[in-house]
């Protein structure tokens, strides 16, 4: 009787652990229009003071939210750089933007200088953009097309997921 019960308990846990360790890429659908007029600083490793207004997100935009204190954000930077290289060499019609949130500007600059991302990196001066995108934590990557947030990916991202997200965005 006990053996049988133990067997079912193990079976139950195996079933759920299998579900949670599934390798399937899961995008979280959002489908919401976004209208922005957000003052941001461009981090360039030099002056870091050029201000731009992030407003028109026409075409496909992949927006990665990160913070300097976040481990997975450090781990994914090489993948994001790889993807940016892919965009440049294959002239892909997509813009990759990194936005630093939940951070101090000095720490964001240190991060920039240390890991040298070569896609556009912005710093949220007003500390409000996370609410506009409904960001829950870092890292999170949003796929935006023609001022509409299509879906997001939570957690560490890699080039494979970025390419899949780009393909799905193009089909929207």
């Amino acid at each position, binding site marked *: 009787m006990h053996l049988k019960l133990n067997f079912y308990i193990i079976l139950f846990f195996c079933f759920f652990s299998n579900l949670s360790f599934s390798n399937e890429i899961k995008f979280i659908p959002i489908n919401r229009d976004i209208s922005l007029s957000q003052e941001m600083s461009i981090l360039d490793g030099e002056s870091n003071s050029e201000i731009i207004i992030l407003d028109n997100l026409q075409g496909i935009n992949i927006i990665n939210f990160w*913070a300097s204190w976040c481990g997975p954000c450090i781990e994914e930077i090489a993948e994001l750089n790889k993807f940016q290289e892919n965009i440049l060499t294959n002239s892909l019609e997509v813009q990759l933007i990194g936005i630093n*949130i*939940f951070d101090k500007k000095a720490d964001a600059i240190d991060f920039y200088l240390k890991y040298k991302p070569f896609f556009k990196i912005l710093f949220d001066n*007003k*500390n*409000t953009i*996370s*609410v*506009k995108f*409904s*960001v*829950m*934590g870092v890292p999170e990557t949003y796929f935006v097309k023609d001022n509409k947030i299509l879906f997001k990916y939570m957690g560490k991202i890699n080039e494979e997921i970025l390419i899949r997200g780009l393909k799905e965005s193009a089909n929207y």
Partner: protein
Amino acid sequence: MQTIKYTLIFIFVIISINGAHSENKIYDISNELMCPVCQGQTVAESNSQLALSMKEVIKLQVSEGKTKKEILNYFISQYGETILAKPPIKGLNLILWIFPPIILVLSLVFWIFNVRNNKKKNSLK
């Protein structure tokens, strides 16, 4: 000279009252919103980075003259109704409001019934 002095005091008092009113409004609104990444804390109670951003947004919208309802609706549009500390009394949320008092009343009835029954049994013995 005297008139200028009183005017300045008057302006200072008005600005202070207005500032305090805005602060109260910001606190009031942030107390009605749950921090989405915290365990049972409202935005007013939390010091998480997201809660701080949410407070900034509330402050900005209050300064733009938006009403409490408009600001709360904005947050509902961003995070869904679960962002509200007090779920609205409608639809499935009704269960949340109705069930606790019903269960309380039923428990009381059951308890009284049990006590009476026990008393009867004791008296029969």
